């Protein structure tokens, strides 16, 4: 059938080219809109998903293990090398031989850069070598005549033509003269050295098995920097005759001296007073049949790492007991290597170390995190010496036949493990293991303490006290509003409470911190009176109401009880506040916070109670609104049926309405909990933000969210601290997302149930 185009139509005839063109254009627009909207919509959804993935992407490197890659291999044609070091940029090495050669070489190919000229005596030969803490770069040679030479490596960095130029050099902190370590002139079989600006300490075991201790105090001349005098004091410790000392170490602060011997004992001396060294403890550190094969200080000089012949490495440090005595404790052990540990190289800035065993396997460890990051073969045929660069990203190894290898290490975040985040960790200088969050400090060799426990507990504590306030008030309020309140009043009450949901939490936090906290502190008994008196007074009012003449009662219809109670609530509040000083005098001797302190309960002005009240206030509208909707949505025929069968309104409520609406109430509580867990400003402003492990209502806490707000601005990008803060954000994200999802699913089920009823 062919349609006849009407003459009067303004539309082009169907099928005409114009109409076809127009239709094609419209179809194009339709399709364009479809794809445009789809792409736009998908992009927004992707952007939202991106949040999760980006957080994860930042956090992920925390859990990577270390990786090593060989960078260069060459032969140095050197023998008898006793020690190597590697500089910060992995390009210059220093090797020290038992002949007294100090050779700086290119770490990438072994070319000699400069051979330092050490003032070696002609009449004696080197009998021992010692190295100080790697951050100081101090070394010493001990000679067969009981003297020692102390020297120090240094790198001068200059930028001629905008290019970095490193000039290695050797300095002599105690002068170029040799120091007489053993007054009796016996050969130094073992030597240990530490040196700081002011003081140098040398300890040596002589050929006739005496332990000599020397302290050199440097007095700088006021006028000339290069002029100084040295004041030497020495002491001697006689060792048991059959004692065979194998290792000797002084800590960087020159306060402690450790000896290891053939029988597997470690002796721990206090040498704070170099003239009278004191033996604190001698302890069997390894089981019988196992030897101590190496011993080094961890950076900071508090812990010693003991390498054993069975491949295990133990960390020991002194712990103070009840009687204020220090005792060595084996704090943790690593047993991921199978052969005797021949060399341990502590990292310079972190509490990590590298260990090489007899079979040539290298292990990378971190002590605080109790984490083995890598165990891999490094050198063929065992015995080698190793050096780690100050940035812990380069490893130089040198075998006895002069074969050298430069290995690059990728090990950015060894400090973090499940153990260090969530379990009790025994930190250095602490009496016992504990959960501590202390992310930064002024000192360089600080052991970062990244336990998430106190923060998580803080968040839980905040949420708990907030829910304690919010749940009863919000749910009871919602029950009344939805079920008993007169519609006129409900129209006012519901929006009033709901509008508070939008109230900025910074305002609540400010009021909590600056108004409520001092108020609570000054009127503590009054606050408790309010809590006790309010329900009692409500019931009494209700009772009194029944006693009122019915003419009076009829003036206020049912559903307006809440309005009757408003003046009562205000009166109770005011009365409690006014009675507070009297009560305080009567019950608590006039100062309740002090009374609490005397009873052994710590009291902070900004405490969990204040947070509970303020955050409870913030959460009430959320819970109230959802609960109210759920109860109000209960189909009317259910309640009418119940009432018709003779149940009282209260019976109908508890047996019919609440049961039906319970999933809705549950999801309201979940959503409220989610809000309390993530809330930042209130917990930031209303507590002292101290990370403590305590559930005391009168003390503060530090929550995950507040911790992010406090520390994020000062965390260096891509540092471990930065990534851990991202991890805390991810934890918060995950926790709230799960809570909300549960709530949402429950709510959708409920909605389906209502529609089917």
């Amino acid at each position, binding site marked *: 059938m062919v349609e006849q185009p009407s003459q009067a139509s303004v539309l082009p005839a169907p099928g005409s080219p114009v109409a076809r063109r127009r239709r094609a254009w419209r179809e194009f627009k339709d399709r364009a809109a479809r794809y445009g909207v789809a792409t736009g919509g998908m992009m927004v959804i992707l952007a939202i998903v991106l949040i999760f993935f980006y957080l994860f992407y930042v956090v992920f490197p925390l859990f990577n293990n270390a990786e090593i890659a060989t960078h260069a291999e060459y032969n140095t044609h050197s023998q008898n090398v006793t020690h190597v070091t590697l500089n910060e940029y992995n390009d210059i090495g220093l090797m020290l031989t038992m002949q007294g050669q100090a050779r700086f070489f290119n770490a990438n190919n072994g070319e000699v850069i400069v051979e330092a000229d050490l003032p070696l005596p002609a009449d004696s030969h080197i009998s021992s070598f010692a190295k100080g803490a790697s951050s100081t770069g101090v070394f010493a040679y001990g000679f067969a005549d009981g003297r020692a030479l102390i020297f120090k490596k240094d790198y001068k960095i200059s930028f001629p033509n905008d290019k970095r130029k490193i000039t290695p050099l050797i300095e002599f902190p105690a002068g170029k003269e040799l120091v007489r370590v053993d007054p009796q002139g016996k050969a130094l079989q073992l030597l240990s050295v530490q040196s700081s600006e002011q003081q140098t300490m040398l300890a040596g075991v002589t050929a006739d098995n005496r332990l000599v201790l020397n302290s050199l105090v440097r007095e700088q001349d006021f006028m000339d920097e290069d002029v100084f005098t040295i004041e030497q004091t020495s002491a001697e410790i006689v060792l048991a005759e059959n004692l065979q000392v194998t290792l000797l170490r002084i800590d960087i602060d020159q306060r402690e001296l450790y000896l290891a011997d053939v029988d597997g004992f470690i002796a721990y001396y206090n040498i704070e007073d170099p003239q009278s060294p004191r033996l604190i403890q001698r302890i069997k550190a390894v089981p019988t049949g196992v030897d101590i094969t190496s011993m080094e200080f961890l950076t900071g000089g508090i812990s010693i790492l003991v390498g054993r012949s069975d491949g295990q490495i133990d960390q020991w440090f002194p712990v103070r007991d009840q009687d204020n005595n220090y005792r060595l404790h084996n704090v943790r052990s690593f047993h991921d290597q199978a052969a005797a540990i021949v060399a341990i190289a502590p990292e310079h800035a972190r509490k990590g170390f590298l260990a090489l065993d007899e079979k040539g396997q290298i292990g990378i460890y971190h002590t605080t995190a109790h984490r083995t990051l890598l165990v891999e073969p490094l050198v063929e045929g065992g015995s080698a010496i190793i050096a780690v660069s100050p940035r812990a990203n380069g490893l130089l190894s040198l075998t006895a036949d002069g074969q050298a290898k430069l290995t690059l290490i990728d090990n950015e975040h060894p400090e973090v493990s499940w153990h260090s985040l969530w379990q009790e960790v025994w930190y250095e200088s602490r009496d016992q293991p504990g959960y501590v969050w202390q992310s930064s400090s002024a000192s360089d060799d600080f052991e970062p303490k990244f336990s998430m426990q106190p923060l998580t507990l803080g968040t839980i504590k905040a949420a708990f006290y907030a829910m304690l306030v919010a749940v009863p008030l919000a749910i009871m309020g919602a029950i009344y509003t939805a079920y008993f309140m007169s519609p006129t009043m409900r129209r006012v*009450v519901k929006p009033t409470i709901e509008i508070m949901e939008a109230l900025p939490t910074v305002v609540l936090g400010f009021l909590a911190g600056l108004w409520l906290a001092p108020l609570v502190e000054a009127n503590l008994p009054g606050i408790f009176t309010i809590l006790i008196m309010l329900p009692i007074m409500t019931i009494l009012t209700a009772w009194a109401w029944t006693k009122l003449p019915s003419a009076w009662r009829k003036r206020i219809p049912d559903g307006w009880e*809440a309005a009757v109670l408003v003046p009562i609530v205000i009166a109770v509040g005011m009365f409690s506040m006014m009675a507070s000083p009297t009560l305080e005098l009567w019950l608590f001797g006039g100062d309740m916070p002090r009374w609490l302190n005397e009873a052994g309960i710590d009291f902070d002005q900004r405490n969990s109670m204040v947070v509970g009240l303020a955050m409870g206030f913030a959460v009430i509208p959320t819970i109230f609104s959802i609960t109210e909707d759920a109860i109000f949505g209960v189909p009317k025929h259910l309640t009418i049926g119940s009432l018709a069968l003779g149940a009282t309104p209260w019976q109908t409520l508890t047996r019919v309405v609440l049961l039906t609406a319970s999933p809705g109430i549950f999801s309201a509580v979940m959503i409220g909990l989610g809000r309390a867990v*993530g809330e930042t400003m209130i917990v930031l402003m209303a507590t002292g933000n101290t990370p403590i492990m305590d559930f005391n209502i009168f003390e503060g806490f530090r929550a995950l969210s507040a911790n992010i707000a406090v520390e994020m601005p000062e965390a260096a990008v891509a540092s471990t601290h930065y990534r851990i803060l991202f991890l805390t954000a991810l934890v918060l994200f995950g926790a709230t997302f799960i809570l909300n999802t549960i709530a949402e699913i429950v709510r959708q089920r409920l909605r389906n149930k209502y529609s089917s009823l």
Partner: protein
Amino acid sequence: MSKQSVSTWFKSGSPWIWLNAGAVSISIVMVVGLLLLIAVRGLSHFWPADIMALSYQEPGGEPITLIGELVDTEVVTALRLKSTGVDLPSGQTTGERHLLKVGNRDYFGLDFRWINGSWAGEASYPEKIVAVERREWGDFFGYLLEIRQQGQTIASGDDAWAELQQRLDRSNKLIAQIKQLEKSDIGTINHGLEGLRLKDRKLELEGVVAGSVQHQQIEQERKQWNLRYADITKQLAVLNAAVNRDQMVIQISDGREVEIPLAKVVDIMRPNAMGVGQKIATYGREVWKFVSGDPREANTEGGIFPAIFGTVLMVMIMAVFVTPFGVVAAIYLKEYAKQGPIIRLIRIAVNNLAGVPSIVYGVFGLGFFVYFLGGNIDEIFFSASLPTPTFGTPGLLWASLTLALLTVPVVIVATEEGLSRIPRAIREGSLALGATKAETLWRTVLPMAAPAMMTGLILAVARAAGEVAPLMMVGVVKLAPALAIDTVAPYLHLDRQFMHLGFHIYDVGFQSPNVEAARPLVYATALLLVLIIIVLNMTAISIRNRLRENFKSTES
């Protein structure tokens, strides 16, 4: 009924109903009480309170006179008073104490003083006490003695007060001129010079040899800027000399006579001599100064205009991002996407995102927007000014984007709700008439859903205006040196940091050195923020309600 016993009464459930009612009453009292607290404290800040003169004698001390404003009175137990160093006579268990704002911080050390009620004498309100609002060191109270010009006494006694007003106006006008020169004119010059430095650096990066034509041109321009600068410095010197002409002498409560240059004075009044009408006028003026002025003294005094400006601008830029994206996503979810388990999952996820803590968005914004996006933008477009970051640092743009992400679920949910409320008949009618899906959407559905989108947007704005935690990481600062909009191209500086009302509350309330003095100002700021947010929410609610009414009529 009246004869019932207690146990039957309990059985009837009536007490529990009352208890539930009590919960509502408590909530209402808390809500209203909180709003009243903020309102009363915030609004009373601007009221020119009477200043009392009080004789005060500590036991064993000389009687002294205190001049100040009564701030607070409380009853405290003796033991607590003892810990503050006040010993009450034995037998007296509680004491009354008053907090007096005595001002004159630079002479007394502290501008607040607790005084013990029983040691205070009779208070009087002499009309001649003046309250001086100073540019530095807070308020100043005392008796005006004389006016000096270049050290010469011009007027004293009652004449001094008459002479003062006109001289104060003059000095304030001069100071406004100086400020204009310093801020605007010198700012322009600095901006010009900085631009030249960047050009220089760019030439260097491009490898243009020194002494080329471009370099000479730059040198030329630099000379011109420097000339203008010298000119302005000369003008400033003249103005500064003029502004320092007048001084006034004030006697403070301990009898000392203090000379204050008028250049240091913002305002001066005699509150005790003012009538109610005058006070109301002053009140209005103070409110205006608060809303339109710049902050002084580490934000603890003066106005909060930059914070209002920053908040509004940030929220507006956020709205520009959030509206189209939120609406498009909602249309996609509701109209185009195939409704199935995946879309249901996405919908739940979007819903939940509204409940994710805002601090998480802040962390994301800092990591992704600031360091990742911003860092890359800097390397590509602003390499000349590196290592000083342009976009690789917290700023207005990143703050707006972060908040847009935070509020996009709100817009999506509201728009979707609006779309689902549109009766099927309307859609089907349009389709039946031959309109394509896009035309149906564009011509009939979207216009009807517009109020819903509006609601979503307003709710988003209200939420964004009140958020502080994420902003602390992505661009808010304590004191921004310049507004983000000015007369220098490109006029809108998205890379600048800005001030924000919510952060202002946090900062002044918790980080400022003199919290006690700043407290009323924080209340006023909080009141303003709460008002903005409540008004926005009320608007959203009323739009939503009207919308529901409309659809009810279409459906029936």
